[in-house]
C-alpha cells in the first residue's frame, strides 16, 4: 500500500486571522476536514506570491496547532517569521485572503503510551509545534517541562496559553535580554537531572538539535527532533531536503526530511553533515 503523503490534501485555505506577536505572525487558516488529520510535528506547504509570482517553490511551516471543529470544519494555526520574500508575502496577506495549502505533511512526534516526564525544547519560532505536542502529552498524563531559546527576547515565541500548559518554562537568550544568558543546551543537563526527564522533544535550528542529541545520548534518553532542511516541494519529489540518517542495520542513507521527517530520532541523524556526504553513506 502506498503510505507516502497518505493524508495530504491540497486545499484553498481562507485566512481567518493574522496577528503580529513579537517578531512573528500568528496566522489562522480555515482548512476544512484536514485539520482533524494533523498531528504535532506535521507541517504544511503553502504556495506564495500569487499567480504571477517569481517565487516558484512552496514554503513549509510547522503546524502550531490544528483545531478540529467537527462537521468538516477545521483550522490550522501557524507561527510565521517574516524573514524571506515568501514568508513576508504570507504575513502581508489579509483576513479572508485565500492561499493554496497542502497538509498534513511529514512525520509526527511519537507519543508514549505510558505517562512519562517529557522535556520540550524549542529554538526561535521552532517552538511552534511544541505547544500542540504539550497538550497531547498532558492528555496522556505526562509531565511536560519546556525550554525555549532564541537570540533575543523578541524572538521567543511563548504565548500565554502555552506557558500555562507546561509544568515549568525556562527561557534562554543569546544576549541575555530574557531568561538565562546562553543557549538551550547550557541548561539542558540540569533540567534533565532535576526533573528526571525520560524523553526530549525538540524543534529548531540544526546546530541546536545536534547539541541536544549529544546531551540526550550522554544521558541515555530518547530524543525526537523535528529537523529544518530547506525544501523545494515538501511532498517528497524534489530530493533537495535530504539529511544523512543511520538505519536500523547501521547503513547511512540520504533521507528526505519531508517524508522520513521532519520528526526523526536524533540519535540516528548524522549531524555536522552540511556541505559533505558522510563517509560510508550508501551510494557515496
Amino acid at each position, binding site marked *: 500500500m*502506498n503510505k*507516502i*503523503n*497518505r493524508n*495530504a490534501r*491540497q486545499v484553498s485555505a481562507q485566512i481567518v486571522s493574522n496577528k503580529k506577536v513579537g517578531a512573528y505572525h500568528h496566522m489562522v487558516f480555515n482548512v476544512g476536514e484536514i485539520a482533524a488529520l494533523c498531528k504535532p510535528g506535521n507541517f504544511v506547504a503553502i*504556495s506564495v506570491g500569487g499567480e504571477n509570482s*517569481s*517565487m*516558484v*517553490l*512552496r514554503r513549509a511551516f510547522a503546524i502550531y496547532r490544528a483545531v478540529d471543529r467537527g462537521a468538516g470544519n477545521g483550522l490550522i494555526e501557524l507561527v510565521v517569521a517574516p524573514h524571506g520574500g515568501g514568508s513576508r508575502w504570507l504575513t502581508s496577506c489579509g483576513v479572508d485572503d485565500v492561499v*493554496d495549502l*497542502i497538509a498534513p505533511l511529514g512525520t509526527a512526534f511519537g507519543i508514549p503510551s505510558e505517562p512519562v516526564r517529557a522535556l520540550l525544547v524549542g529554538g526561535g519560532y521552532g517552538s511552534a509545534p511544541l505547544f500542540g505536542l504539550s497538550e497531547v502529552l498532558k492528555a496522556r498524563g505526562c509531565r511536560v517541562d519546556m525550554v525555549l531559546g532564541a537570540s533575543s527576547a523578541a524572538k521567543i515565541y511563548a504565548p500565554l496559553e502555552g506557558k500555562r500548559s507546561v509544568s515549568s518554562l525556562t527561557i534562554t537568550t543569546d544576549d541575555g535580554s530574557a531568561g538565562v544568558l546562553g543557549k538551550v543546551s547550557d541548561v539542558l543537563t540540569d533540567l534533565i537531572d532535576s526533573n528526571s526527564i525520560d524523553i526530549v522533544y525538540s524543534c529548531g535550528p540544526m546546530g541546536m538539535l545536534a547539541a541536544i542529541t549529544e546531551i540526550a545520548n550522554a544521558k541515555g534518553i530518547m530524543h525526537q527532533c523535528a529537523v529544518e*532542511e*530547506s*525544501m*523545494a*516541494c515538501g*511532498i*517528497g*519529489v*524534489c*530530493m*533537495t*531536503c*535530504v*539529511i544523512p540518517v543511520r538505519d536500523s542495520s547501521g547503513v547511512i*542513507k*540520504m533521507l528526505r526530511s519531508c*517524508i522520513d521527517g521532519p520528526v526523526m530520532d536524533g540519535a540516528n541523524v548524522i549531524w555536522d*553533515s*552540511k*556541505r*559533505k*556526504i558522510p563517509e560510508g*553513506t*550508501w*551510494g*557515496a
Partner: protein
Amino acid sequence: MTFDFSTSLGQARFDNPIFTASGCAGSGKELAQFFPLTELGAVVTKSIMVKARSGRATPRMAETPSGMLNSIGLQGPGIDIFLENDVPWLISQGAKIVVSIAGESVDDYAVLARKMRSVSGISALEVNISCPNVENRGQVFACDPVTARAAIEAVRRNIGGELPIIAKLTPDVTDISAIAEEVVSAGADSLALINTVLGMVIDTETLRPRLAGKTGGLSGPAIRPIAVRAIYQVHARLPHVRILGMGGVTNGNDALQLILAGASAVSVGTATFGNPTAVMKVKSELQNLLVAKGFNSLHEAVGYAHRAE
C-alpha cells in the same frame, strides 16, 4: 468531431502529451495521493544509474527568480532495486512508463540498456546524457558529438527489440541541432529537450557558492525561452524526429509554446514542486487552448510556428 489529444514518440503511443519530467515525480507514489497516475501521458522516472548513489551534499537547492537551481546528483537506489520496486508499483497503477537512465561511462549505458531489454511494461527509454550535476563537466556526454554518439550507440546496440530511445540533450552547447543530428544517426528515435541549464548562486552572507556542489542545474520558467528556442532549432533541422519538450512549463499556454515550436509531448518538472497537481492543470488548459485555436488534433499543432508567412 472529437479532438485527438494522443501522441507518439517513436513506436510508443500515449493517450495525451503531458508527462512528468525526469527527477520531478519521485517514485510516482508521492504524486499518486494527489491524482491518479493514469491521467498522465506517461510517468518519466528519475534517471537511474547502475549502482546506488547518495547524490551530492546539501545544500542542494537555491530558489532563483522564476526558477531554481538544483544539484541533487542523481540520488537513487541503482537499477536492480529500481526494477524490483519502482517499476512494478508503477505498472500496478496502470501508468505508462518512460524509464530514464544515466551513466558515468559508455559501458554504464550498455549495462543499463541490457538490464532494460527484458523488462516489460515500459513504453520508452529516456537516455539522459546531459545531467549537469556530475563532478567532471567532461562527462556530460551531450556536450560533445563524439561522446553523445558513443552513449546512444551503446544503448542502441544493447537494447534490442522495439523499445524507443529518447535522447535527452543539454542546451549548454553552441549548436544543439548538430548534437541532435548526431544522436539520431546513432540510433535515437526521439529527443528530450531540454535538460537544466548550468548555473550558480553565490551567497552574499557567506561569500561562497550557495550550493555544496557549487554549480547546479537551473530549471523553471526562467529557462522556458531557452527550451522553446532549442526545440524550434532542432525541429527545423530534423522535422521528422519526435521531440519530448520540457523547460519551465507551468500552464497550458507554456505547453502550447513548446508544441508550436515542435514538441510532440511536454514534460512538467519544476512546476510540480510548487503545485503537485500542475500536470493536471497543464493538461486541461492545453487541450482547451488547442480546441479554442481551431486545431482538430494535437498533431496538427506540432511545429505550427514553423509554417510559411
